[in-house]
């Protein structure tokens, strides 16, 4: 199989890196080669953050080439335009507006809700996603995030 390229973008504090950890973990658990790249350092200061996840049979560079993202998942509305150039022609843009924020059990789980949307486009099972979410979050957050994931998955199927 060829490499699947996903870029997740947002602002510091929105859970960009957590979302990319969960996605990378799902692909890893499926036995695929996975690489994930992000630059830490200034992100806690509320600046732009983005993370690249690539998976397939064999992945070389950890970074998604500009214009090479099959999926661009953006958590902050104002970061869509900033990151649009990373999307491949025909690539899928997943924007925060696809989720009704008021329906989320807590607004911090928007990142996981958007993963739910993304999950509709990928071949990993719901069980695999559930397991990855549980592995990457503390137990007290499991319920809210699994609920958000389901909401996102429902929105993605529309």
């Amino acid at each position: 199989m060829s490499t699947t390229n996903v870029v997740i973008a947002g602002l510091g504090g929105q859970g960009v890196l957590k979302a990319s950890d969960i996605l990378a973990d799902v692909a890893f658990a499926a036995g695929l080669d996975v690489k994930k790249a992000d630059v830490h350092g200034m992100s806690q200061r509320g600046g732009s953050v983005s993370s690249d996840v690539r998976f397939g049979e064999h992945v070389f560079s950890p970074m998604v080439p500009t214009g090479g993202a099959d999926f661009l998942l953006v958590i902050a509305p104002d970061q869509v335009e900033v990151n649009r150039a990373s999307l491949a022609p025909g690539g899928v843009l997943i924007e925060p507006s696809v989720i009704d924020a008021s329906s989320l059990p807590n607004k911090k789980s928007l990142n996981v809700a958007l993963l739910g949307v993304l999950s509709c486009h990928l071949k990993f099972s719901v069980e695999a996603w559930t397991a990855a979410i549980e592995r990457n979050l503390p137990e007290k957050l499991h319920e809210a995030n699994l609920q958000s994931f389901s909401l996102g998955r429902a929105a993605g199927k529309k």
Partner: protein
Amino acid sequence: MNSLQQQNALALLSGDEAVALAALDAGVKLGTGYPGTPSTEILENFDKLGGKAQWAPNEKVALEVATGVAFAGQRAIVTMKHVGLNVAADPLFTVAKIRLDGALIVVSADDPGMASSQNEQDNRRYALAAGVTMLEPSDSQEAYEFTLRAIEISERWQVPVLLRMTTRVCHSKTIVRRGTVTIPASGPAHFEHDFPSRVMIPAYARPAHVRLRKTLAQIAAWNEQSGLNQTIVGSSSLGIITSGAAFQYVREAAPEASVLKLGMTYPLPIEKMRAFAESVDLCTVIEEGDPYLVEAARTAGIAVEAAPEIFRFGELNTLRVRHILEGDETPEPKRAPGKPPALCPGCPHRAAYETLKKLNCIVAGDIGCYSLGVLPPFEAMDTLVCMGAAIGVGLGLRHALPPEEAKRVVSVLGDSTFVHSGITGLVEMIYNPPPTGHLLLILDNGTTAMTGLQEHPGTGRTLDHAATGKVIFENLARSLGVTNVHVIDPTAEPEKFEHLIQSCLDKPELSVVIARRNCLLAARSIREYERCNEHN
């Protein structure tokens, strides 16, 4: 990393996590360093895995402590960002020539493209300049394996080894299989007198230098056949010599090319490089940063092509490597600017900067979150050079400017930076006071905030947050003889703070003002640590 309990287990790890795991598997006695992006997570993870890890006041001290561990026949790892090696360069150049009994691994995490640094120096130059053997991993698996190999090499030849990483290798997560390299266990700690090997007076240092060059020649000969360098046989028309993260981009951009991927980049396997270059019609070097491999190859008379100068700046990636190979030098499109970082809402530095701006101060600044004070809306930092430079630069400005302007100069640095390399600056302030006096403002937010909230000697807590000895800045300043020493919280008392700064600037005396309020991001954790430590 919980899934990595067993040997041969697989896990998705960052390069930093992989180095920590290797240090654990090698039985490293002590990990020490100073926080610096992108190296910080190595020691944090080594601690989490159960290794003994500690923060030093700065990189020089860390390297010296680690050297002592190696003198005692044990294994030590020292971590720092690239500019940290400048601070540690003094011990590095001499320890390179000293016979070690244990292992000494110096991790330099370079930051090409400056994701969060003040320069993009290429620390491969240090290996050459100091005569230190160097390994360069290109992903997390190699970060794991090369750390173990580095320990093996360090003990076999009794020399320190530089593990040169870059931001992408440190922070990218890739799959690691544990237990792929095993090395003999460390021997017992011991010390034996060996004056000529370890006491670098000139009479002993002269033969020590000769010995180093002989050792490096042996390592170079060994490296010609070592498994650290990998040849991928592909097309005979194009051959690429590369190392580190660039290897991944090369494989993606030119899957058909023959590749010589160098894992040990000092001393270089020159004959292997020559044979490779001669085996292909055209040999190109693809490397991130300075033309280090290009210069070495050409000096040895190996004909190689080099990337145009524009590719020396910033990080490489697959697209840029493709452009190098195609000879495409068209200006590269700039990425759309994202939202820049800013001081957090409620950050205690905000009140301090508002006052400095209002009083029209000339601010000799420094490195930390508070460097963001240079950006709007504050625009209240005039200089930034290196860790601790605020004090020296501020004093120099005071010495040179006419009195009316000199009186407006304030040196501003953070608590961790002050401990790192501000204390000697404070001594200079007392020893050579400018005629107008001087004001040092320490923004003490109780943590090393910029790198992710690490402890330091001023917090009175160790790397894993346990109580320990504490450096109290106001006591230190008073004991050194500073006339006016004040502690204040500018957020709680902005008017009093403004009045205090103004009165210090008006006096031709030495003043130290400590603006103390915990970082908003750290405050809750700090309260928790304090409560735990009280109970223990």
